[in-house]
């Protein structure tokens, strides 16, 4: 018996909201990065579920691209975080307060 489409959408909505809330309330940049990854993976669940529903492979192709982009984003993001840690000795968002005036 196939799992109905709505189950996938509820799951992906839940994962996406977890990611959004994580970005908004967590202070450590690495945890924020992980939360963004949750958001992107929620998208992938959507694409695969819709792809199966429509019998259209385009959605799964999109997932490959989204995964690749997410990997590139993490590579750039971690590089920035390492450089930031060298300059600031902290990777907490609250400590980033040089730019105000």
């Amino acid at each position: 018996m196939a799992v109905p489409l709505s189950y996938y959408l509820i799951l992906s909505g839940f994962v996406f909201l977890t990611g959004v809330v994580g970005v908004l309330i967590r202070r450590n940049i690495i945890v924020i990065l992980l939360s963004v990854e949750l958001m992107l993976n929620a998208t992938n669940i959507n694409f695969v579920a819709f792809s199966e529903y429509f019998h259209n492979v385009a959605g799964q192709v999109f997932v490959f691209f989204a995964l690749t982009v997410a990997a590139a984003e993490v590579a750039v993001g971690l590089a920035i975080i390492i450089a930031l840690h060298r300059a600031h000795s902290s990777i907490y968002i609250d400590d980033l307060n040089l730019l105000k005036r």
Partner: protein
Amino acid sequence: MTFPLQDLLTILPELIVIGTACLILALDPILEATKKDVLAWLTLGALAMCIGLTSSQMTGRVSAFSGMVVIDAYAAFWKLLLYIVTGLTVLLSLAYLKAERLSIGEYYGFILLALAGMMVMVSGADLLTIYLGTELMSLSLYVMAGLKRTEARSLEASAKYFVLGAFSSGVLLYGISLLFGLAGSTGLSAIAAAITAHGTGDPLLSLALVLLAVGFGFKMAVVPFHMWTPDVYQGAPTSVTAFMAVASKAASFGAFLRVFVEGLGAASADWSVLFTVVCLATLALGNLVAIVQTNIKRMLAYSSIAHAGYALIGVVVAGGHSGEGASTGFASVLLYIAIYSFMTLGAFALVGMLRKEGQESDQIEDYAGLAKREPLAAFFMLVFLVSLAGIPPTAGFIGKFYIFMAAVNGGMTWLAIVAVIFAAISAFYYLRIVMVMYMREAEGSIATHSRLETSPALSLVLACALAGVVLLGLFPNGLWSLASQAAPLLK
């Protein structure tokens, strides 16, 4: 799998840009530090080739790679604008990197990669290509913002830009996945057909619309998604700030209009209400918060937010109409962004090169007495600021004039009146800097005064920006006819 040669020829400008970027990344390690300028000239050469190629693609509508990419006058308009501002940024960077003692060759590679992303954004006809272009642009810009690796402010800007940029991409992608669920395809024309067939009442469509608006709102820096802008513009190296404020905003508007008109045009009644609210908030916050800034880069950041608000007026007006009225509205947006590019780039070029004791002097205080020390620099700044304020006979006035005319003709006179009031408020903070430059005496000893570090490249940038601001102000017809040729292709 093979690609037809015709398709590859269609995207030849993109291929040239990416190829040159790879060449630069390969050449960078084997070039001596003193010879990195070669890479800048290589970049300019590639841009010159692209200008020639894209100018020949102004007519017709060619679609390539099974409808993933479309080349038409609309895409060509944005691409030509992007080549010009990228070229000016490269020239500015030649001077700026020298003054900052940064000899980083890959900088030019990143500029070209970001440009390639922007080009894909404006000519994408499928949400997949538009998303990939957006990401290529953003990833390059994150790195460029943090290019001064030893300076904590630059890295802070980079980290903030990265966190909010990645968040907005996630939101954008979720919106795209919902649209895929509605239409069964990510092609803009298929989405438009699905919306026409199903009607606009679907709550999933409204959610997707909002998510896409949030995603693009971050990239265009409109209120309430603007909070990264002042910090990032202030902390990033000024040549990069100029590039972000001008090129990335132009490309984001280009992709945004394409998606919302070609893909979601049938739901324009819904989104034009949404963007009316965003537009009013952007005008109010951008102009009011700019008044209290003491750092000129932050002030210009808020000013760039406000200018996105003026451009949105054209979008709102066009969204409420069809046919002729819509085309005029969109054409006024294209014209406005093109004019905005020249004046903002000129202002940032001056801000980056006005220096004291080897540092950028980016406090408004530092501009005191500039008219006596550097009369020519003060005059250039005066022209750019007057244009940003929208005072005739500069191009800034023409841009606002066409936007307001579109609003009045479109029956939204109240919006034009509100915008004129905010434009009057904006004159206050632009002219305050003029007053500081011309009326105030500099304090302290002469050694601590800011001076303009001149170089032939900087002179060329300033001359081009000034020529753009003055000539487009006096003879706007050429640009207007280009914009009104490009705009009706959105449908």
